[in-house]
């Protein structure tokens, strides 16, 4: 195929795309005008039905909880996939990285960076935990909180040494926590089935005060499990990548490679 022919094919396809795109744009509802009945209907009943004022969490973990179980396991499988692809292969072994560009002038991590990273660990853990445990009261949730908890461990790596990061997040422990988080979510659903209710039915007491931390039944509990699952999954992924970058080398290549 000559470049000329290719350009023609592109022009025809591009014009078609633009035409369909504009056609689609014309059919959109006006800015800020949501035409569906689902949103207003949920907003009318959500607080009365669940005692959760974090409406997004109520939808994610209750009304559409089954969707969220699927998403949860997408992350679970992704972390398992990363761990499998990046495992230590035959012919590879752990060895500290050798500086392979010795002529390059790499400054040590400055004490300012270390201090800021170290000082941030506590507040980040607190904020992450707060987010993961307050899904029922405000627009936080297990996912955001979990990722923030994971970044606390990345800060430990930034502030100190790789080995300290590994000591604080041993792979066996993160594996178990991740599995418990994923299984906990699914188990809450199954326990409802065992009681003769629909899967993921919110059967726990909803509490008295809308928006209280103790309110909303299974929504708060599911958010907790999602939080630890997500935190463990991301720690696992980052840990595997750090392993790859800093430790694992091939046998054959002379200076590691």
């Amino acid at each position: 195929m000559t470049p000329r022919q290719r350009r023609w094919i592109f022009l025809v396809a591009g014009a078609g795309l633009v035409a369909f795109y504009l056609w689609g744009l014309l059919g959109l509802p006006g800015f800020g005008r949501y035409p569906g009945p689902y949103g207003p209907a949920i907003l009318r009943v959500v607080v009365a039905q669940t005692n959760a004022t974090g409406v997004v969490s109520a939808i994610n973990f209750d009304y559409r909880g089954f969707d969220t179980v699927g998403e949860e396991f997408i992350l679970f499988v992704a972390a398992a996939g990363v761990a499998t692809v990046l495992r230590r292969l035959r012919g590879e072994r752990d060895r500290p990285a050798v500086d392979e560009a010795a002529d390059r002038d790499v400054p040590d991590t400055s004490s300012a960076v270390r201090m800021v990273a170290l000082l941030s660990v506590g507040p980040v853990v607190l904020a992450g935990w707060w987010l993961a445990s307050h899904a029922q009261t405000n627009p936080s949730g297990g996912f955001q909180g979990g990722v923030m908890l994971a970044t606390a461990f990345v800060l430990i790596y930034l502030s100190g040494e790789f080995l300290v990061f590994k000591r604080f997040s041993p792979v066996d422990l993160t594996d178990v926590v991740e599995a418990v988080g994923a299984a906990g979510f699914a188990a809450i659903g199954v326990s409802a089935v065992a009681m003769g209710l629909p899967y993921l039915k919110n059967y726990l007491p909803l509490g008295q005060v809308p928006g209280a931390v103790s309110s909303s039944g299974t929504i708060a509990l599911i958010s907790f499990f999602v939080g630890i699952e997500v935190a463990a999954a991301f720690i696992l992924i980052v840990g595997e990548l750090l392993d790859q970058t800093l430790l694992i080398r091939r046998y054959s290549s002379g200076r590691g490679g």
Partner: protein
Amino acid sequence: MNGLAVQTPYTVPVGMMDALQITLLVLVAAGATAVVLIRAPVRQVLMLSTYGVLLAVLFLAFQAPDVTLSELTVGAVLLPAVLLLTLAKVRKKEQ
């Protein structure tokens, strides 16, 4: 744009909110273009992180604070971190 004032404890004039949203949309479009145009991988990753922050602020201005939190943690922090680690590994192999 639908003529209703945004209901918050403090009043936000509708025109100001519109201006903020339009500004952020333009910034996000510019940021996305920059991510595509920058060719040096490390700089591209840093731009991607900046773009993540812009997108997070955009979500906040469009009243989706929960998506803002997810975008901040994943788009601005973890995705760039994962990409930087990958670049470090690949670079070592090349040398």
